[in-house]
């Protein structure tokens, strides 16, 4: 039994451990820390945009730095490490191996993240998470920009190390009696996303180096004044970061595949279509990157190719939604907190996907591109789908990690407030985009429709903020004072859990 918080240990024993659940715990706590830090920045942004004119943030430069660090933090320091936390806890158990394939590498991959996070937060760069040249080369103030580049470089290496570990653990260390087709869908999701990382990340790693040498003035890859081309950076960036969207979303879907059948008390509707859709998404995800670049002056043919590539990803996503709904159909569903988060996440996943189809259609993209529509669209993915799946899964694994139950009522209030808040913020941002409000702006003209929508969005953000305080209190209080969980069946739904207490080697 590995109930970390029930068996007091000195903190350095966890910090210097290479055991997969210890590394998972480190990932978990660090990613949640960054969730609250990045979320606080989001509240500052929404407070500033509540009214036109300067509100709480005095100047545009501070505002630009805040949204840059907000985005970088929540993508690279919350979503990805949180998925690694879940993968560390569950993948070795699911493939019936004693640990990750390379335990030391696992710990190293984790310990690269805190210094990278420190570089990003101490630098506080202002060039958006996209770091687009030539602005990032000739205009962005250092050393913040250079610190951001180094931070991302370290995070990239950490991701690659983590991905290698997951791939080897799943493919090479799974129990000999287990065929690859018997590996649970959550582990399959980590296999798919890790393979995407291995193919996609090196491109951005190269682009970051080129960006750095461009900033130092020794090269001119992306600097038009030295004969370079900023559009080349856009291609390299999106070749990594459109597939990266699937790196973020696939583990969250995997988490839902663990929650939905458990709380529907039914087996998954179609295991094979889940695998098929994961593999299809991982491949098709590479055919759509330049749909972020329709307005850079691409030819009609290029735009058509990338539109088709983008639309091709929709059926695979739709298969997941079908699978979830068919699993819940006629099930004896128990709406415990994790189930509520998973079902809410699926609803928002569907909404986000529908908006994505509109973005992909070439003529419509010229209405929505770089407006608040896009902000609303991708936040429905990162918040509505990925964070919802992740938070639901956190409630699901909570009894195992702490040996205690969280407070169910507080968990449900957390969900309801977050769900309402998410709809208020991100649906209204779609409307704002249709009104034409550009993204990444510190201030906006006093157009009545813009003010109204911004105020609704800001109120929604505060509702999410309140729900997150409830969440934090629940997590901390229940870890010490919650009711002891029944380790065999903490949620009272029966069935076989993939809980790590089945692992036979508590220390490694």
């Amino acid at each position: 039994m590995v109930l970390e918080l029930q068996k007091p240990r000195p903190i350095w024993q966890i910090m210097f451990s290479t055991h997969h659940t210890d590394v998972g715990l480190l990932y978990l706590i660090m990613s949640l820390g960054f969730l609250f830090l990045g979320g606080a920045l989001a509240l500052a942004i929404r407070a500033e945009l509540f009214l036109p004119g300067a509100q709480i943030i005095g100047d545009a430069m501070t505002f630009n730095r805040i949204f840059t660090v907000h985005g970088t933090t929540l993508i690279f320091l919350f979503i990805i490490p949180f998925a690694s936390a879940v993968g560390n806890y569950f993948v070795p158990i699911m493939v019936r191996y004693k640990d990750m394939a390379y335990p030391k590498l696992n710990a190293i991959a984790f310990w690269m993240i805190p210094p990278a996070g420190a570089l990003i937060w101490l630098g506080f760069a202002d060039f958006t998470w996209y770091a687009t040249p030539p602005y990032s080369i000739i205009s962005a103030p250092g050393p913040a920009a250079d610190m951001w580049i180094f931070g991302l470089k370290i995070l990239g290496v950490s991701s690659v190390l983590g991905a290698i570990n997951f791939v080897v653990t799943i493919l090479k260390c799974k129990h000999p009696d287990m065929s690859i087709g018997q590996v649970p869908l959550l582990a399959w999701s980590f296999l798919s996303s890790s393979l995407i990382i291995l193919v996609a990340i090196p491109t951005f790693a190269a682009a970051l180096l080129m960006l750095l040498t461009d900033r130092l003035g020794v090269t001119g890859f992306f600097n038009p004044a030295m004969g370079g081309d900023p559009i080349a950076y856009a291609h390299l960036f999106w070749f990594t970061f459109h597939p990266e969207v699937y790196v973020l979303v696939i583990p969250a879907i995997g988490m839902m595949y663990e929650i939905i059948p458990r709380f529907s008390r039914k087996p998954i509707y179609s295991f094979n279509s889940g695998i098929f859709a994961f593999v299809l998404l991982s491949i098709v995800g590479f055919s759509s990157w330049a749909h972020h670049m329709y307005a850079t002056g691409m030819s009609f043919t290029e735009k058509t190719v990338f539109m088709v590539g983008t639309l091709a990803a929709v059926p695979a996503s739709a298969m997941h939604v079908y699978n979830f709904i068919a699993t819940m159909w006629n099930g004896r569903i128990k709406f415990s907190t994790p189930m509520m988060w998973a079902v809410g996440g699926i609803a928002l996943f569907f909404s986000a996907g529908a908006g994505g189809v509109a973005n992909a259609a070439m003529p419509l993209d010229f209405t929505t591109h770089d407006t608040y529509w896009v902000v609303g669209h991708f936040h429905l993915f990162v918040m509505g789908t990925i964070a919802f799946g992740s938070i639901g899964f956190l409630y699901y694994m909570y009894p195992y990690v702490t040996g205690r139950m969280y407070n169910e009522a507080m968990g449900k209030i957390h969900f309801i407030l977050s769900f309402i808040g998410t709809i208020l913020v991100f649906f209204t941002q779609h409307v704002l985009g249709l009104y034409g409000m550009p993204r990444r702006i510190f201030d906006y003209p006093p157009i009545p429709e813009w003010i109204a929508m911004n105020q609704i969005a800001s109120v929604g953000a505060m509702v999410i903020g309140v729900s997150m305080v409830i969440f934090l209190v629940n997590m901390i209080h229940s870890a010490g004072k919650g009711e002891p969980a029944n380790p065999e069946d903490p949620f009272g739904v029966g069935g076989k859990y993939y809980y790590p207490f089945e692992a036979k080697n508590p220390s490694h």
Partner: protein
Amino acid sequence: MGGHSNWPEWIYVGAVVAIMCWVGAEAWEAERLVEHVPEGAEIIKVTGQQWFWTFEHEDGTKEIGELHVEKGKAYKFEIHSTDVNHSFNIHDYVVLMDAIPGRVNTVWFAPDAVGEHDIQCREYCGLIHYNMRGTLIVEEPHS
């Protein structure tokens, strides 16, 4: 897994694929029409720089921050930037094209009513990006 039949899923996936084909075909057709620049469109050179827009008409007239055009005429914008990336946007006429140093991008429009519309920058370009705004003024034809 197991003994159930999968035909509802096949129908569902088929329906999704059909909808995507329809969206793609409609978008392809619309974009093809939108990209066809009318003959004789008047050229306006648009320059983006931190943090304002300048316009140069075919007759050599230059304007800063304001752009005067005539109702009923077609205009073709030739857009470039002198420093960092910007994005030239007249939202009311769905005119959007990036201004990129070292490149000239083109987009066209034909205003159909007299009035004023906002011009803005839609690509992040630094400190005053939020206020890189201008005004499009559509006037009655002069002649």
